[in-house]
């Protein structure tokens, strides 16, 4: 009985483990990588993990959309799905804007490595060139 409960909770929490793993992995990539594109990839993974955080608890296995009919008795909660649809749009917009900025940065600096860009800026400031 006890064993069954443990495996139940482990199985029941499976999506949470995935969510937390994706969350930390994404955030780690943003912090640890110097390449601006890779940082955006990390940001994308981080944001995607939140989609899972919302969707997983709202989805019932075998549940349908809330349709008023005698044929269906088990419903999934539609609200988180709708919210995440919005969040996905926001995520896409953020990624698109981020990539557009990287393109412009590449044109201006000839580099997409954070440390090289910071080095270029620091050199500019050392030489005392005013903006």
């Amino acid at each position: 009985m006890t064993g069954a409960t443990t495996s139940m909770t482990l199985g029941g929490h499976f999506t949470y483990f995935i969510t937390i793993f994706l969350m930390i992995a994404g955030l780690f990539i943003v912090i640890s990588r110097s390449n601006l594109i890779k940082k955006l990839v990390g940001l994308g993974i981080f944001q995607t993990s939140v989609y899972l955080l919302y969707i997983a608890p709202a989805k019932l296995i075998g549940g349908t959309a809330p349709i008023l009919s005698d044929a269906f008795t088990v419903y999934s909660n539609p609200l988180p799905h709708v919210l995440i649809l919005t969040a996905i749009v926001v995520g896409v917009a953020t990624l698109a804007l981020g990539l557009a900025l990287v393109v412009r940065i590449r044109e201006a600096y000839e580099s997409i490595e954070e440390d090289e860009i910071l080095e270029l800026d620091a050199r500019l400031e050392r030489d005392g060139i005013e903006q």
Partner: protein
Amino acid sequence: MNLVPHLPALQVVIPLMAAPLTVLLRRRSVAFAVALIASWTALAIAVLLWLQVSHSGTITYAIGNWPAPWGIEYRVDRLNSFMLILVSGIAALVLPFSRASIEAEVPASQHYLFYTMFVLCLTGLLGIAVTGDAFNIFVFLEISSLSAYVLIALGRDRRALFAAYQYLLMGSIGATFLVIGIGLLYLMTGTLNLADMGLRIANVQGTRPVLAALAFITVGVSLKLALFPLHQWLPNAYTFAPSAVSAFLAATATKVAVYVLLRFYFTVFGASAVFAKLPMQEMMLLLALAGMFAASTVAIFQTDLKRLFAYSSVAQIGYIILGMSFDSVSGLTASIVHLFNHGVTKGAIYMLLGCVALGMGGTTLGRVQGLGKRMPLTSFGIVIGGLSLIGVPGTAGFISKWYLLLAALEKGQWWLVFMIVLSSLLAAAYVWRFVEAAYFQEPRKDTDEVATTPWLISVPTAILVIAIVYFGLDTSFTIGTASDAATALLGGRR
């Protein structure tokens, strides 16, 4: 047709509709006119809402007639209406200023896009302030942030691009933390309506998901409001953005983020819960003090005035958070008043720096040598703004600091009084850096010919500088609204 009941929705809808119009019309003078009308209408609506709230109390508005808590509810009380006036007021002044200011700083072909992004950013900030729905806050936060990134990237220096990129990363992480927090709260309470959430949270108070939500929301919003040490994005963003953008964002963006924190702490979690379950009070106190001292000290050693005042913003955010950490009506009053007063002060300073950039060709301390002789009025305006940052009587900054001192005394925290005064001395030090360059150094030879400032720039700037002095002398509007809002947030507790 009676539009009055629809004012809360129109507050957001009008600037939102103006944004695509500016893109479609394309001609920059037309786009400017559309944006200007939108922002002035927004200010008029904000004033009407404020009057309505002070006359008949909280206004609720069900979007699409779906009753709360199922539909999205817009809810305007004292605090919201105060924020709406600040945001739309600053926008209404910065927009005319921006017309001539961006001539020099943004390529002419992008001007109409500047106005699009500006009104979108305004939409987002107003939306955050007016909505009563947790997820709606996130959506509006992203609308305002995404347009703010674009606005910053419009700066002519290439470092503006990288500043915008860094702000995008930090801002998105902050916003995502906020969504995680909201998601956890939704899982526990089953509602997204802030007021409803505040009622239902009583049953699950102190459970781990709720505490995790509190932590996520605190960190996420702190990133957005640039609480020390999460302020890394701010100095570069304010320094390299076009002058008009610096003025608008410095006066409104971080302040609206503080509003979000106030709303979640006091309306949703309830102050006692926030401060009892986790050592939030001590943590906020320490971070606020660290910000006040560290950022002010860093500001003293800056050579670019825009960056100097950016660090000063981080320090001033410290005062606001300090007031919150007292968890008392007088502390919250000080916070809310400082939100407004500091918004006005920083808006004025960045607009004046925009004048300096136009006249002298830059804002570094080397450039402003002898500014007192070259641009006496502008220079005097910056001094008034600086005095307000220090908290000299007769300026808006004094009022908020006075209330902060009273709140500290009420708690019997004498050492905090000492700390607040000490950090004001640091503010005096960095303001002195400007005074020294502007008044005690000879003007540079190459700045003999200073272009006259166009009236579209000088009039709004002057209005804001006068506002600094006005709100330092007549406090019936600011203190009256703030203390009402603070009392309401704490549920009548003294």
